């Protein structure tokens, strides 16, 4: 099986330290998504597992075995690259077969394996074609088939859907989830798209500047973020974060928890606002609203609201309100305050808002 453990991993490119002292355990059989903005080190981690971009220092284990010195082909992993990296001069069959041939698997066995995997991903009619004669989605399947046929302990996927058009991406997403259910092997999936992460992952590992910001299930990472970065990265639109009156603490609430009304609501957090823009998405409407005065007195500030309520026109004056249970508090460094960390004075400040 395939449990992956990073221990005190560091990585630098020349002088630049990309990852510093990282510890991470990717659980066996899970669909783990590494997500973060570009340059956060997620692909670097993936390449370390593959053995094509070794760590500068630290230890890496698959199934309790230290693999830093094991060559890429012997690690029991398979990788799907962002640009597919299928061999353009070989046929589809040649592409799938290449790895098997290198492992000296006998021809009869190869044929069965290829037929099997081609059937699974729906490539059987295209086996004799060259990659240049295939569509983007079909090339993606070739890359998948090539990975699957090796029966690896771990699948590594580096933004495999980012070159596909929006519709295909969504359907491939479901297919990948199904594939994972069927194979029950470890999937490590890298993406910058938080929607992809939310929809596919068993566990999300959210990274920023080489550090893990939070590692949790999609539900937990959405409902219970550890810090401002996580709160703003996960969810669309990002969580509204406002500096509080003391200029230190920060207050956050999700756009989808904002309640709009014409009269002042009886909620802990209530502010006056003006509607700046309105985007109708059908089932929901996203409003961009402007508060006259931010809580910390820094002037006008914008917040987002997402609600089924579409009756407010641009420029109309409204009240925004957020329930007490939907408010998140963060300290100066952006760390989340929970339970006892939320003092009555903080809540008092929330209720008072910018009024002195």
């Amino acid at each position: 099986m395939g449990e992956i453990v990073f221990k005190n991993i560091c990585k630098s490119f020349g002088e630049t330290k990309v990852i510093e002292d990282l510890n991470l355990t990717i659980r066996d059989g899970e669909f783990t998504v590494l997500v973060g903005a570009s340059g956060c080190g997620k692909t670097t981690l993936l390449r370390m597992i593959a053995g094509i971009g070794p760590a500068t220092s630290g230890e890496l284990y698959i199934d309790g075995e230290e693999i830093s010195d094991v060559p890429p082909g012997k690690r029991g992993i398979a990788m799907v690259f962002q640009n597919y990296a299928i061999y353009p001069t070989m046929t589809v069959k040649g592409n799938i077969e290449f790895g098997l041939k290198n492992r000296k698997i006998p021809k009869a066995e190869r044929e069965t394996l290829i037929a099997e995997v081609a059937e699974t991903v729906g490539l059987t009619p295209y086996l004799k074609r060259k990659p240049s004669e295939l569509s983007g989605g079909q090339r993606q399947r070739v890359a998948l088939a090539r990975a699957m046929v090796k029966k690896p302990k771990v699948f590594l996927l580096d933004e495999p859907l980012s070159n596909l058009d929006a519709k295909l991406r969504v359907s491939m997403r479901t297919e990948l989830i199904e594939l994972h259910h069927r194979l029950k092997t470890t999937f490590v999936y890298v993406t910058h798209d938080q929607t992809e992460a939310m929809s596919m992952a068993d566990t999300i590992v959210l990274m920023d500047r080489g550090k893990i910001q939070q590692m949790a299930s999609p539900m937990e990472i959405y409902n219970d973020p550890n810090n401002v970065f996580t709160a703003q990265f996960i969810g669309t639109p990002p969580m509204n974060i406002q500096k509080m009156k003391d200029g230190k603490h920060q207050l956050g609430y999700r756009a989808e928890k904002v309640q709009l009304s014409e009269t002042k609501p009886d909620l802990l957090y209530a502010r006056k606002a003006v509607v700046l823009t309105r985007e109708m998405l059908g089932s929901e409407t996203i409003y961009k609203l402007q508060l006259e005065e931010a809580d910390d007195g820094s002037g006008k500030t914008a917040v987002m609201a997402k609600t089924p309520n579409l009756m407010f026109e641009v420029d109309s004056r409204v009240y925004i309100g957020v329930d007490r249970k939907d408010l998140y508090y963060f300290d100066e460094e952006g760390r989340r305050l929970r339970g006892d960390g939320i003092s009555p004075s903080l809540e008092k400040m929330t209720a008072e808002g910018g009024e002195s």
Partner: protein
Amino acid sequence: MYEYKKPNKKLLKVKKIVFAVISTFFKLLVCVIFAFPFLWMISTSFKTLYESLLYPPTLLPQNFTVDAYISLFEQVHLERYILNSLIILVSVTLLQVLIMVPAAYAFAKYNFKMKGVLFGAVMVAFMVPTQITFVSVFQMFSKMQLLDTLLPQIIPCICNAFGIFLLRQNFMQIPEELLESARLDEAGELKIMLKIMLPMSKSTLVTIMLLSMIGTWNSYFWPLVMTLHDSVRPITIAIQSLRNLEGGLEWPIIMAGNVILVLPVLILFFLASKKIIEAMAYRGVK
């Protein structure tokens, strides 16, 4: 109001035809200018000596004869020279590929110490003309007592600096992911080079080989310097020496020799011209 004037269709048609006629005429003219020396050469090679000296000259042979070709092989024994040329050609081409491909792969995809300096050396070798180096090369072979053999015609030519450069450029365009993917597929470096990189650079390789083959086949200066005896000389020198036959300038024989010299090059070009064009044009294979 502005009135749309219908173009005179007939006039347009006439213009088109006139243009086509003129353009075709000039194209043909250029073709004739380029092809005429070749045709003249072929025609003369089939003439008798008497006819070749006639004034005014005849365009096509009046008495068609292959005597010139026969005497080329019976008197001059051209086949010996052809064999020498072929041995040189095949060895040079094969050895060039053997050296060029791994060198280009290393320069394109590996990082090693002194890479920049070494590649600079290759580029210098590519830029320095042979006329500058031949004296020292001559001395080297002289010291090794290898002059007047086939070896000094082969060994100094086996490193094709231009080829290394061109192939390296081509290899560099191949995305790194393909190599990584092959490494994940447990392919060794040799296999990556032969099964992934080379097939993707086939046209470039063919072009390089072709250019180098033509160069080797036509080389004159180098063998002239490095050899003394006819037994090791290539066809080019033999044909030059046709001018010094006892009977004076026998144009049909000289031209027949030139036809034989040019023929392989022409055949090669027609066989590979598609590949050459492919190599020079941008290929958008994803």
